[in-house]
């Protein structure tokens, strides 16, 4: 008997399972991106690089990136 993906997805709460899996993944990724921004901040304290080096831009980008991931988490929580 060929595998029918549509009937398989209807055999259990597919949407709920997928939502939980997706939220878990995005949540873990948000932690990773937060860690990244913390790491950058700590490195900027060890070595002070001038503004021309782009260190400030990288720090700001890391924060923006974290907030975008966090926004995606809440977006997934609300709309999915």
């Amino acid at each position, binding site marked *: 008997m060929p595998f029918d*993906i*549509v009937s398989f*997805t209807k055999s259990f709460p597919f*949407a709920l399972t*997928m*939502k939980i899996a*997706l939220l878990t*993944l*995005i949540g873990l*990724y948000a932690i*990773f*991106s937060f*860690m*990244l921004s913390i*790491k*950058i901040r*700590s*490195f900027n*304290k*060890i*070595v*002070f*690089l*001038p*503004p*021309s*080096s*782009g*260190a400030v*831009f*990288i720090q700001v*980008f*890391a924060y923006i*990136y974290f907030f*975008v*991931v966090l926004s*995606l988490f809440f*977006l*997934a929580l609300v*709309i*999915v």
Partner: protein
Amino acid sequence: MPDIFSDQENLPSNLTPVPVIKPTRVFHPLRMLSTFVQDPLGVSLIEQAADEHILLFIRRDFITNVPWFVSTFILLIAPILLPLVLQSVHWSLAFIPQTFLVIITLFYYLIAVGFAFANFVTWFYGIGIVTQRRAIDIDLYNISYASVATAKVQDLKDVRYFQRGFFQSFFDYGDVTMVVEASGETLTFEQTPRPAQVVSLLSSLIGGHE
């Protein structure tokens, strides 16, 4: 008979002695993609002494970033090719609700951008610094592991560099290793550009301390 030596005090009053000009250090600006900067302008370290000057600032050679550039490019174009692949194997993503697909696509592109950003940060903060007193090696591996190693110049011995393979020789980059005398541990500036110049500087510093 010509004078071989005459005291400057005996010079005529209209001639003044030429002042000795000390060579001044020329600072070089540090840019975002700089990999080798002698006397970098505006760089300072935590717990840097007032009379300690940064002589050399190095990062991995820029060419070492090519593998993750290629990986990022493949990651970015993969979703464009995905429908064609699925079509060829007679598969469809129609069973996934549209809202899920939007979130999954956004999340995928965030991961792709994050992958590139994490690699860039790993390169950006993988720094080697040489001052007239110490050598500092800052490494960041996969964001989760960071190491900061410092060694005093007078404790360094056996400074050497390795260029392995065609690419390292062609693009003139390689590993500079130095053994710390007290602990026997090795400090390594990995894949640094112009390694011969780095070794030359370190050797002259070590020679100056001996």
